[in-house]
């Protein structure tokens, strides 16, 4: 570095190293500004709370907030996709059985109380290919076909579905896993 440059640099450094004399009121003025800034912020946030309080104190607003809570709770359960009364998603599911000699075919399972109280799903025939589509809650289910044929009524597992292992009452049934199409 040339001599003149070093001299200039030293002068600058010396100047920067010289202690700055602050006005005696400097610290007090800074602290006043700081306190004022935080006081404003506190007032702003209290303003939010104040608005909230005035809303909830008013009977009409209280009712509105309450209705909102109920609506949110209900909509959470009954949103866009079809759902059961308990909030479970339901999916259209088609059951098909080939039974050319059957007079009628119905589907019973845990999703329709196994056909209690006439809740069995009655299939329609297309030249012996019986089918019915129903809304079934997402999850794992057990079901069977009840075929009314030449030998009377007969329970049949779905030959195309996994077997269900819980046949405690001596009649076969099938397992069905209904997946949530919204996921």
């Amino acid at each position: 570095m040339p001599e003149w440059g070093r001299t200039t640099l030293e002068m600058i450094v010396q100047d920067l190293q010289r202690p700055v004399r602050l006005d005696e009121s400097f610290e007090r003025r800074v602290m006043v500004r700081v306190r004022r800034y935080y006081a404003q912020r506190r007032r702003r946030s209290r303003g939010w709370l104040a608005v909230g309080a005035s809303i909830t104190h008013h009977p009409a607003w209280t009712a509105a907030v309450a209705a909102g809570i109920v609506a949110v709770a209900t909509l959470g359960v009954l949103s866009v996709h079809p759902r059961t009364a308990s909030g479970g998603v339901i999916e259209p599911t088609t059951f098909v059985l080939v039974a050319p000699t059957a007079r009628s075919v119905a589907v019973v399972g845990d999703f329709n109380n196994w056909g209690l109280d006439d809740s069995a799903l009655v299939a329609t025939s297309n030249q012996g290919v019986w089918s019915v589509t129903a809304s079934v809650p997402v999850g794992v289910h057990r079901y069977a076909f009840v075929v009314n044929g030449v030998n009377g009524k007969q329970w049949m597992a779905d030959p195309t579905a996994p077997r269900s292992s819980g046949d405690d009452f001596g009649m076969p049934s099938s397992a069905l896993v209904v997946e949530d199409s919204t996921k």
Partner: protein
Amino acid sequence: MSKRTTRSLMMVAALASASVTSANAQDPRVLPRLDAPSRAAIAAVVDSAKAQGIPVEPLYDKVNEGVVKGADGPHIVVAVRNLALDLATAHRALGALATADEIKAAASAMHAGVPAVELGKLKKQSGLRRSLTLPFTVLADIVSRGVPVSTAANAIRSLVGAGAKDKDINDFQRNVKVDIEQGAPPAAAAETRAKGTAKPENLDQIDQ
């Protein structure tokens, strides 16, 4: 916010949640169709299941099924008790994060002869996000078709470990079923079809 307002909001929230909860509760309409002792026995099983955090809906479904199939009360009670035991064991084996459907499917697999410990291993291996409802259902199916439990469990473990989707596992079940119906030995069918479905890096699991 005033105390009064807070209290009323909490009451509304509680009412909303109570309405959802009551909708979730199973309506035991079918119980009056049973004789009084069977009804009492089933109520006790259901209460015990509730206390253990076990899903009770499958227990009511079992009652419905028994009534429709013409079973007598004591027979239905035995079936419900056995199911409650299987559900409790499955619940313990799978852990607290298992869904009600997974527990139901696991109980079904146990009914087919799969030990709870195998199901617990599968759950541990699969992680939290993977639902094992379908894998357990297929496991129960292939065991009921004659595939030895260890072979079936290894096959399902390898498929789940390889990241097979439910659709792949469904296809696996169908193929195994057709192979067996065509005369293939069940174990050979399951091993071969699992190898065909799993990724190459997971093949060694099937041979174990």
